[in-house]
């Protein structure tokens, strides 16, 4: 029987899920193992990306060695909290729920005029700070939850949700995350809900990005993986405006994908001519 279609998956973005899952599980075991750890910490938002990272981490280390953490703010949607709980229940891992309302509100009492973006970024960094603190207690490394679509568009908070020790899903477009999440058994309620950063009520990725992920991923895949030029992309049905907008976002957010730039003074500078593997 054919699988029920939950989303539009562009044909060029279809993946062999079993092959990718095997690779990502080995990646987690080896990269975390080499750092001297065999446990992982994952922050669960209730969305599909963090759910997939959690499923992969459990596959790699076993349920007892993965700590799943929910960090709601008072305006976070109750469904998100419930969906994150569904992941915890399905996987049977230890978990923590740490509300971030008090510390966020205490801070912004000094800046009552702060806008939603500023508050959202602060929340993302507070969550990062909690994950790294629990990482010390649980003796495990923080597993990333940012996908390739988000990383390319810069749709994340630097040193916030973009921060992690290792990221198994950063080379998978959202459309590929969807396939793999379904394959790995992420609960259906998470698969079918509209993607949202959930930084304020009713927020929607696709509304903010101005397009569906299927469209955005087709464009990103054409630009990045296939190196198509503007004319070829227009031939595939994209508007000049959309292509230019996405290119601009990719360029503007390059800094989020790199370590801070260091001013060269010596003959051997970190990152320039002092080059050792991360796995040194």
């Amino acid at each position, binding site marked *: 029987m054919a699988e029920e279609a939950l989303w539009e998956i562009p044909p060029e973005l*279809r*993946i*062999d899920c079993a*092959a*990718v899952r*095997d*690779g990502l599980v*080995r*990646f987690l075991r*080896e*990269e975390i193992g080499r750092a001297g750890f065999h446990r992982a910490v994952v922050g669960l938002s209730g969305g599909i990306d963090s759910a997939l990272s959690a499923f992969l981490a459990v596959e790699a280390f076993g349920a007892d060695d993965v700590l799943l953490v929910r960090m709601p703010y008072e305006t976070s949607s109750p469904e998100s909290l419930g969906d994150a709980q569904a992941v915890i229940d399905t996987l049977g891992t230890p978990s923590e729920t740490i509300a971030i309302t008090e510390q966020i509100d205490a801070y912004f009492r000094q800046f009552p005029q702060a806008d939603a973006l500023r508050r959202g970024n602060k929340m993302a960094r507070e969550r990062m700070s909690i994950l790294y603190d629990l990482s010390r207690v649980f003796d495990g490394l923080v597993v990333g939850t940012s996908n390739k679509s988000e990383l390319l568009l810069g749709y994340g908070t630097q040193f916030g949700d973009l921060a992690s020790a*290792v990221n198994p899903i950063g080379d998978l477009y959202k459309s590929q995350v969807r396939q793999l999440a379904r394959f790995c058994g992420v609960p259906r309620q998470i698969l079918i809900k509209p993607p949202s950063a959930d930084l304020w009520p009713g927020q929607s990725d696709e509304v903010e990005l101005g397009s569906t992920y299927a469209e955005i991923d087709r464009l990103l895949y054409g630009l990045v993986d296939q190196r198509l030029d503007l004319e070829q992309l227009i031939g595939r049905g994209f508007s000049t405006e959309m292509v230019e907008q996405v290119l601009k976002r990719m360029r503007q957010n390059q800094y989020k994908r790199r370590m801070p730039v260091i001013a060269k003074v010596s003959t051997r500078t970190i990152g320039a001519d*002092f*080059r*050792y*593997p*991360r*796995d*040194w």
Partner: protein
Amino acid sequence: MRVALAQIKPQLGQWSENLDLHRQWIAQAKVQGAQLVVFPELAMTGYTLKDLVDEVAISLSSEAFASLAALSMEIDVVTSFVEESNHHVRYISTAYLSKGRLVHCHRKIYPVTYGMFDEMRYFGKGDQVRTHATDFGEVGLLVCEDAWHPALGYLLSQQGAELLIVPSCSPLRGVTAEGWKSIQTWEHLLIADATLFGCWVFFCNRVGYEDGVGFAGRSMVIDPFGEIVSAAPVGEETLLLAECDDTAVHRARLGAQMLRDEDAYLVLRELQATLARRGEL
């Protein structure tokens, strides 16, 4: 002849650990009755070395190399390491070792430097491709990217190669609904070599992750008819054994006579004419 391909996971920058790893896998190959054991590219050092290259480089006259060669007393060994020449140029070198001695050393001719690869930043280029005689026939060594330059396989074929040995560090990349594109491409390339040159191909590819890059494994023994006789799984450490029929090269070249008909002088003339037209001769 029974061959063993040691699809291992070397430790990055750890010479003595990797020497121990070689001892263990060679012992296992011997127990399995293999007469030749092949290790992947840079099996003695790991791949993503960057500035570690200098720390693991050895010369062919060093004690370190002698201890490696000593592992081949009872079984022939092909393995790979960073060689430092007398002029202090570093190469990705691959040694054919037999009876405790170096039989042949191949310096990688095309250190790959595009896309995700940066080898020529750290390594010099070999400038010679030669077959050498072994108990199992005439052997030609090609390391990873070398096999993507068909002229090298052609030259070895002209020199009489009956066996191409291809140690590699090929990563998993380019996933599609049908699996990893990189694995499929290697299969196509190597099957073509075996078929066109009527020779055995032993492809030994490493596994394990370094800096986020997973090496594919999927080592293969391909016979001179172009059939995959034996293949290792993707991503898993495996000692792949294969029985190689001594008569296969003979039989394959009866059925397909490209080597007999090959016109090396035509190739030479046309290459010279081409280079002359390009103003390079």
